């Protein structure tokens, strides 16, 4: 069993490496001189790829956390309205013309974080107060929150001037086309922190998947672990959404595929999800960049196009 998992993880790592090494060179042929190619690679492709890897890994990790906590593959930060909460936070930041930063981190990230935390608290509150809170209700609550926040964002957009309105719109599509090295630094501390905490709590995540009663009886302080995980994933989702918008469904598809590949033991699942998630978003971004080249479409469009059918497949499979 362990050797199987080791082999699977090795193949995921190998595939990731191939994608990481190969993707920046795709679509370079139109550049005429070697210097221009070099410049594109170093200043545009490399930061974009690094960013896509970190964002993809972070989004997948947060999806994995939610799936484990709610014991449901359909429960992710996006389906439960956390990402739209973060978007609302970021949109409000732009609309109010705020401009602050704290220890080098943009205020957008903090606003998005607060938005994410608010919506997660709301979903959690509801799921606690109804003892028989079914999957349907949980997801419907998420949908309702998403709609609600989306309409608030539209409202803000409507009130904004043209420039702000366009800035908000560009995010909501979820794009990686303009990211640079600065954006990587906006993201890295949060994703790193999230990875560290989740690795630290991998045994607890395993036990959470057995249900609250068993987890508690095995010695897990379920309430405290939940709060810690909600907090840390809000931070992570907030940071990602603040920079590149809500890139949907990555957090649902990647961890679920990894579970199928490597099983539910989080000590194996976490590294698999991080690698797979990073590589997956790079791949989607490369497709987004090439499919109607020289123009490109936002990567969020690609992930959502893949994610929609995947969601429906899960829905049918789980027979809820």
């Amino acid at each position: 069993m362990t050797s199987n998992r080791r082999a699977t993880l090795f193949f995921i790592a190998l595939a990731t490496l191939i994608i990481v090494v190969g993707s920046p060179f795709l679509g370079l042929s139109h550049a005429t001189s070697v210097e221009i190619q070099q410049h594109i690679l170093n200043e545009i492709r490399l930061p974009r790829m690094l960013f896509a890897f970190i964002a993809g890994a972070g989004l997948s990790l947060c999806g994995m956390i939610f799936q484990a906590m709610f014991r449901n593959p359909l429960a992710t930060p996006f389906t439960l309205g956390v990402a739209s909460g973060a978007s609302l936070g970021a949109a409000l930041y732009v609309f109010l013309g705020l401009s602050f930063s704290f220890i080098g981190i943009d205020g957008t990230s903090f606003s998005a974080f607060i938005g994410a935390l608010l919506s997660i608290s709301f979903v959690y509150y509801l799921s606690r107060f109804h003892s028989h809170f079914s999957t349907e209700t949980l997801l419907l609550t998420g949908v309702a929150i998403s709609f609600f926040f989306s309409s608030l964002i539209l409202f803000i957009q409507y009130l904004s001037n043209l420039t702000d309105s366009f800035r908000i719109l560009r995010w909501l599509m979820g794009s990686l086309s303009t990211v640079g090295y600065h954006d990587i630094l906006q993201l890295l501390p949060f994703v790193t922190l999230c990875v560290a905490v989740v690795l630290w709590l991998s045994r607890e995540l395993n036990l959470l998947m057995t249900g609250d009663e068993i987890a508690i009886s095995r010695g897990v302080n379920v309430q405290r672990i939940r709060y810690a995980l909600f907090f840390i994933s809000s931070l992570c989702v907030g940071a990602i959404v603040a920079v590149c918008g809500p890139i949907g469904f990555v957090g649902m598809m990647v961890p679920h595929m990894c579970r199928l590949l490597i099983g539910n033991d989080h000590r194996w699942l976490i590294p698999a999800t991080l690698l797979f998630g990073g590589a997956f978003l790079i791949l989607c971004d490369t497709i987004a960049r090439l499919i109607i080249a020289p123009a490109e479409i936002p990567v969020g469009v690609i992930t959502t196009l893949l994610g929609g059918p995947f969601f429906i497949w899960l829905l049918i499979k789980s027979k809820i």
Partner: protein
Amino acid sequence: MSALLEVNNLSIEIANTTLLSSISFQINNGDYLCVLGSNGAGKSTLLKALLGIINPTSGDILIQQQTLSQLSQKQRAQQISYVPQAHGPQLDFTVIDFIKMSRYAHHTALSDWASDDQDAFEKAIAITDTESFLQRQMQTLSGGEQQRIMIAAALCQQSPLLLLDEPTSFLDPHYQAEVHQLILKLNQQHGISVIEVSHDLNHAVQHSSSILALKNGAKMWFGAASEFLETEHVHTLYDQQFVFAKHPQTGAKIALVSETL
């Protein structure tokens, strides 16, 4: 000898509804207590309080002279383990992973699987005779097999007190008998103290050492299991008339539901 578990005037109220009122009892090392009562009598609430899922509104619970609410969840798990009802949530784990996970209370985030973990694991497998299931997926096991794994996992936790919540409900008679025998073996041969919530009156009377009968959240009777059928309480406990017979093999007194109203 001091008591293993002491429950003093335990009351639990949730949203102004009294679920348990002033329950007191104690059990010693090696006891096998069955908790009986009709649906909604407070049995599950009592179990949840012992697990630390619900906090007492008043009164206290002492395990080895330590107040339960002052222990960390890990310390509680080192004292008390738990077997849920059969057919709980889907468990997407292999048997071996699931059992090993129950060593959690003996670990920190950085500690490795050590030789005492392996000893506890192998002992639990041997006692429950579950060696042959280890590589299987939990969902592929039958209800009775799953309960044996649940018991193995609880044993692996190495706590002196084992709580079981109707461990044989939803099982067929063969598996019921098998699980009952296993619990008896743990209690008699391995010195594990047991608290079992049950609806099986005859099982409780024949196998356990003492019985706690709950009705409407209050203690109705607490005493030696052998005396329970001698009292009138058995009828009032369930609001049901019983007649009694002798078990053809053991000669023990058993209760049967009366056919006349």
